[in-house]
């Protein structure tokens, strides 16, 4: 079965969908905390005394030879999260709730299809006006089509391409100048 993205897992978490038949999954913070603390705990006096005179010398010998199973705690954590089953089960609803869900889903798909269609029609309209304008320029401008020929010149388009300043992703409220060079960290003078 195809494994699903971690986004689904977080969604399942938000919607309180239990993700496996196993008992409740320990929280991320708790797991991290436990793993990180497991080896950094300072031994108490009794434990230290026991460790100084252990029954078995296996660990000490292994450590002396440098063959001890020394795994970075971070890698242990990474393996835990990488292999944790995160696939949520499919949605299971009663009939009415399922119908509601389906209705909303269909409406959303319909809405997006309408948006796509609108965008496509807008592009088509722009293309056709461009066509009309060029045809007018070619036949009706009265300059023997020179302006038309100049406008059809594609020199430099595919070599110079767009200037890098053009490529600025849209924001909700773009500032008039992109960067405030006078900004200082509040503590600084």
């Amino acid at each position: 079965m195809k494994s699903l993205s971690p986004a689904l897992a977080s969604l399942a978490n938000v919607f309180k969908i239990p993700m496996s038949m196993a008992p409740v999954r320990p929280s991320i913070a708790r797991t991290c905390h436990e793993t990180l603390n497991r080896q950094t705990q300072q031994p108490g006096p009794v434990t230290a005394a026991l460790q100084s005179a252990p029954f078995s010398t296996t660990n000490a010998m292994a450590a002396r030879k440098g063959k001890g199973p020394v795994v970075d705690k971070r890698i242990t954590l990474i393996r835990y999260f990488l292999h944790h089953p995160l696939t949520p089960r499919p949605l299971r609803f009663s009939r009415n709730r399922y119908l509601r869900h389906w209705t909303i889903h269909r409406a959303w798909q319909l809405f997006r299809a309408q948006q796509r269609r609108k965008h496509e029609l807008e592009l088509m309209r722009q293309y056709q006006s461009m066509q009309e304008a060029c045809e007018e320029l070619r036949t009706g401008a009265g300059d023997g089509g020179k302006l038309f020929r100049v406008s059809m010149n594609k020199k430099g388009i595919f070599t110079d391409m767009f200037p890098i300043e053009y490529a600025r992703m849209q924001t909700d409220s773009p500032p008039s100048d992109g960067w405030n060079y006078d900004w200082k960290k509040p503590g600084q003078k």
Partner: protein
Amino acid sequence: MAAREPSRYLARALPRTSVPSIRPQGFLSRRNVSDEAPARRLSDHLTELESASSLSTTVPESAAASFDPLARAAARKNQLPRGRYQFRSPKYNRGPLHPHQPPPPSHPSSRLFVPGPFSAPRAEQTFDSTVSPDIMTLCYVHTPPGFKPPPKSARLREWDDSSPYHKNRVLRGPRGGDVLRLLRKPIKFNNIPEIERITIHSYVKNAAAERNSSWLHVAGIAVQAISNVRVETFKSKSNVAPWGIAAGRDSVAVKAELYGENMHHFFGKLVDVVLPRIKDWEGVKGSSGDSSGNITFGLIPENVALFPELEINYDMYPPKMIPGCHITLHTTAKTDKDARLLLSAMGIPFYGKIVN
């Protein structure tokens, strides 16, 4: 860019609006964006809202009296399935002839159903509103109405029947090599190139060398973190003796394929956050590309660590194990020059000699 000295010609051309042109009706009845520039205030938007709530409408007595769901359910010829019934998509694909078939992945009951998208990525919005019309305009080539391009010769050539063995032989490949390139059609409103998918691929050479899997695990979770997609691992296809890699034995690579929302978010992060912070980075090499519209470039581990998801949690990754990666931007353009035009408009710089 095109018109160097437009004023003289424009002055001559402008009075011609009064002269009847070839197709005056179509030209005059056309709707332009500049025609409708309504200054909308907030109050205009508020008037669109319905003032009355639909919940306060009263139900007529007759309708209330005739409402009897139990009787209606009993009068049904075919009973509905019980209220708790739910269709369960089959867990395994048992082939097209099995009676229990899975629903399409777009159906909410499908096991492959992914809800969403729940956000409008900036990269997608910028492309739709600005970049796509501009690319369409830049690549526009005018042909007079009724123009038909001369027919091109067949791409796969016939054999000249100089030998009897030419009979029923498969056609010859194109001149100058056997590679059949993609056909580039003129860019119109319906085939403006766009980013189709992004592949992040990371080859971890230490995965086999040290006989432990931690390199691959760290690479996998780093790629997962920056891409929001579950990674796939791949075994080596070739022997690499100095690194101790044997073909078919060692898992050495991780790959994530991004589509749709994930892809646009990743692209936005790449262009806005990561690429501007790379020290002494000139851009993507101008000769990159597979000549069918897919551009690849690489990031070294220090650059991968600049992704905000890794940077904010940098301490949780062993620093020497953060992988470098190759990022392939697959576009729907058929040639590299169109793909480069698109990517430069979206914010990826190119340097060096441009090779198509």
